[in-house]
């Protein structure tokens, strides 16, 4: 029954989308400034049915309704309730329904909240957004229907991958999709703007909050995903430059560039064509990312179960999107004249875009190159962390300097910029770096520069903060918070990387190992039976010889039965100053266990910094709301 309800709802969504497109097209011809009431009503029905369809699927998971093939493949009666619900979007079909929900939600909200803007523009945006919705709904119905039936109805489901049974992973997709899919609305708005010729400052104002929202959630989504990887995947890292991770990072670079360029469009009414390009590019990158992740074209630890037919459809859809937007751009966007001073904030924002483009191209080339090489020459190569680190890290240094210095310049023109305090802070940063160098251990020239640049940004943000608070310039708070967060993020990642300890050795029960100023005693193992898994728990005594402290760590090897999987749970002790990280795995046909022990300074602060970056964006949204 759920299947019928769900499928009918999806068909209704499709019908409503087509009706909305039709009605909007008719209303375009009516030359007034009021959007017809029936379009609002249709949109309201559309969002209602969309949310209902999603709830229908959730109910299916909660009730373990195995007549739905999607529930059968991804759930199990023994799963805890929270993970049954999270299982709804932890698979391809369910997450696609979530995509559609967000597409429709943003379509509705954009229509309603943009009542101050020109009618033609709003209608065109609505039409393009609904064309996207129609495309995704057809994809869902033809290829990835979460409401498909299976007969005879199985008694038990295939269960969910145990690695996905984690709270961080439960919220990671919804957060990320608001970012990923949220950028669809300004893709449609860009198309709408080109067709209705609603340009310049007004256009910037209409999309500004939407860019901000998608940026905030994309930042949060990526951060939460990294936190999950750190706590759950058992290798002690949080970013592997894996193709799926890169697929989420590419839109982030574009959205960040766009967020800054929209400011220029709003203030100086220039860079319109570039803003349009970025709006189109961001969602194109999102769909490209989806293509890479779901089609099976790439080899990754994160991939969904892959299916080439999905790939064909998404590629077709992506091609349509790219060609339509490209042709529209060439036809509709005329050449602009630019009036930019070197010593102006606009130029520094262009510099931001310049670096974002560099980082974006690096990650894009690194991710796609193996595919291209394989297709053209049949040679398979790997592009992993060393490539990205070598190319990106050196450029972060000038980027941090630009982030610090840029906001000191005013809009349009800055003739007399006060540089004395800035130089003073720069030397402060150099001194602090020397302090770290001499007291905590030496490092490379590159690392020195990174610390100096990051410290420079952090200190200057504090200075800017005191000045903004004293002059009550509230509108500068978001920028200061986010830039500060970014500086902290680079600093803590740098310190963490420089001073981490990582050792890999084999140990038998009863043995111990001395590593630097730590001693690790493998006391014993214990076997425990849980709801849906059996675990071998290691008992490790960790002695910090320098500080004379004792810590107990309990890594696990978990044996799940449905489906039969083996996972390794790291023992992680997170403290303010550093984390201890211990994983244990059994060496086949031997009494030995392979132990990986790591100390990771300031790990928690890396997460805090990333949240601070996102916080700035949220503060901006709150400020704007209070302003209205």
């Amino acid at each position, binding site marked *: 029954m759920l299947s019928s309800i769900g499928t009918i709802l999806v068909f209704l969504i499709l019908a409503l989308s087509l009706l909305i497109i039709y009605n909007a097209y008719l209303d375009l011809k009516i030359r007034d400034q009021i959007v017809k009431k029936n379009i609002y009503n249709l949109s309201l029905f559309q969002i209602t049915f969309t949310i209902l369809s999603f709830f229908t699927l959730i109910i299916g998971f909660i009730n373990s309704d195995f007549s739905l093939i999607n529930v059968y493949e991804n759930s199990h009666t023994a799963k805890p309730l929270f993970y049954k619900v999270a299982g709804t979007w932890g698979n391809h079909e369910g997450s696609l329904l979530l995509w559609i929900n967000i597409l429709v939600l943003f379509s509705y909200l954009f229509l309603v909240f943009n009542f101050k803007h020109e009618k033609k523009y709003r209608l065109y945006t609505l039409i393009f957004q609904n064309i996207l919705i129609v495309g995704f709904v057809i994809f869902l119905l033809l290829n990835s229907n979460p409401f498909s039936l299976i007969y005879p109805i199985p008694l038990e489901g295939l269960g969910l991958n145990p690695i996905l049974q984690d709270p961080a992973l439960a919220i990671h997709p919804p957060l990320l999709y608001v970012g990923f899919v949220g950028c669809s609305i300004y893709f449609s708005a860009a198309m709408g703007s080109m067709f209705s010729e609603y340009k310049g400052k007004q256009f910037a104002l209409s999309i500004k909050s939407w860019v901000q929202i998608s940026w905030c959630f994309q930042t949060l989504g990526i951060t939460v995903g990294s936190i999950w990887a750190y706590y759950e995947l058992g290798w002690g890292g949080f970013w592997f430059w894996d193709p799926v991770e890169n697929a989420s990072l590419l839109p982030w670079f574009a959205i960040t560039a766009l967020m800054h360029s929209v400011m220029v469009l709003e203030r100086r009414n220039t860079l319109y064509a570039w803003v349009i390009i970025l709006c189109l590019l961001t969602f194109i990158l999102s769909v490209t990312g989806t293509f890479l992740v779901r089609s*099976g*074209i790439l080899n990754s630890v994160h991939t969904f179960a892959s299916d080439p037919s999905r790939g064909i459809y998404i590629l077709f859809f992506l091609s349509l999107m790219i060609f339509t937007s490209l*042709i529209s751009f*060439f036809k509709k966007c005329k050449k602009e004249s630019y009036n930019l001073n070197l010593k102006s904030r606009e130029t520094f924002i262009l510099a931001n875009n310049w670096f974002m483009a560099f980082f974006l191209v690096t990650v894009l080339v690194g991710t796609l190159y193996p595919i291209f090489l*394989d297709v053209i020459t049949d040679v*398979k190569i790997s592009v992993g962390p060393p490539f990205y680190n070598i190319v990106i890290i050196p450029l972060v240094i000038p980027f941090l300097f630009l982030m610090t210095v840029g906001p000191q310049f005013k809009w349009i023109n800055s003739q007399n910029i006060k540089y004395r305090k800035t130089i003073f802070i720069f030397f402060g940063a150099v001194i602090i770096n020397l302090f770290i160098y001499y007291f905590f251990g030496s490092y490379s020239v590159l690392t020195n520069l990174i610390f100096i640049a990051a410290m420079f940004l952090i200190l200057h943000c504090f200075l800017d903060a005191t000045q903004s608070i004293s002059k009550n310039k509230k509108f500068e708070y978001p920028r200061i918070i986010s830039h500060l967060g970014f500086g902290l993020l680079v600093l803590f990642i740098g310190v963490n990387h420089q001073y981490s300890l990582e050792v890999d050795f084999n140990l038998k029960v009863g043995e111990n190992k001395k590593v630097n100023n730590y001693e690790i005693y493998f006391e014993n193992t214990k076997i425990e039976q849980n709801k849906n898994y059996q675990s071998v728990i290691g008992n490790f005594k960790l002695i910090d010889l320098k500080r004379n402290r004792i810590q107990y760590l309990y890594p696990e090897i978990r044996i799940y039965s449905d489906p039969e999987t083996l996972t390794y749970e790291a023992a992680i002790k997170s403290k303010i100053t550093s984390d201890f990280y211990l994983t244990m795995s059994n060496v086949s046909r031997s009494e030995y266990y392979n132990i990986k022990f790591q100390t990771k300074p300031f790990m928690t602060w890396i997460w805090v910094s990333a949240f601070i970056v996102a916080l700035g964006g949220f503060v901006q949204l709150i400020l704007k709301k209070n302003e209205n």
Partner: protein
Amino acid sequence: MKINISKIIIFSFVIFFLSIFWLGLKKDNNYDTKNFIGNKISNFQLSSIYNNDYISEEVLKKNKFTLINFFASWCAPCRTEHKYLINLSNKNKEFKILGISFKDKKKNSINFLNELGNPYNFVAEDADGKASISFGIYGIPESILINNELVIIKKIVGPIDQKYYEEILQLIQ
């Protein structure tokens, strides 16, 4: 829309990108070293599982063809492929089979061969698995067919099945 050179270039790029994606979909992205043929195997010296003698690449130079087969008593697919090895043994006077017991106890390997039959002309052991890396092995069972110049002419990743069996027969004629 005026057609100028930059637009043509951009459209060409887009078409190129999308075509590569399309072609990439058809490719199998599982990596294996099946096509890593044409190189010589490295020199090696492994002890026999039966006595204290050493087996090195020198003995292999005497045969026109040698099949080097990595196996272990604890490996289930090794059991299923074993009958093909038995059939291949002594098919051809100039064809010999070298078995290398991988990360296994001598006792267990000997029992395994006593139970299923010994198709090997020589049996060496690689107790810690390190020698297998020099052969480019990454999982067992895995087999390498070489000629008398020690050049690899075929690699079989996984158990030998009917198809591979016939291919080997063809190659050693």
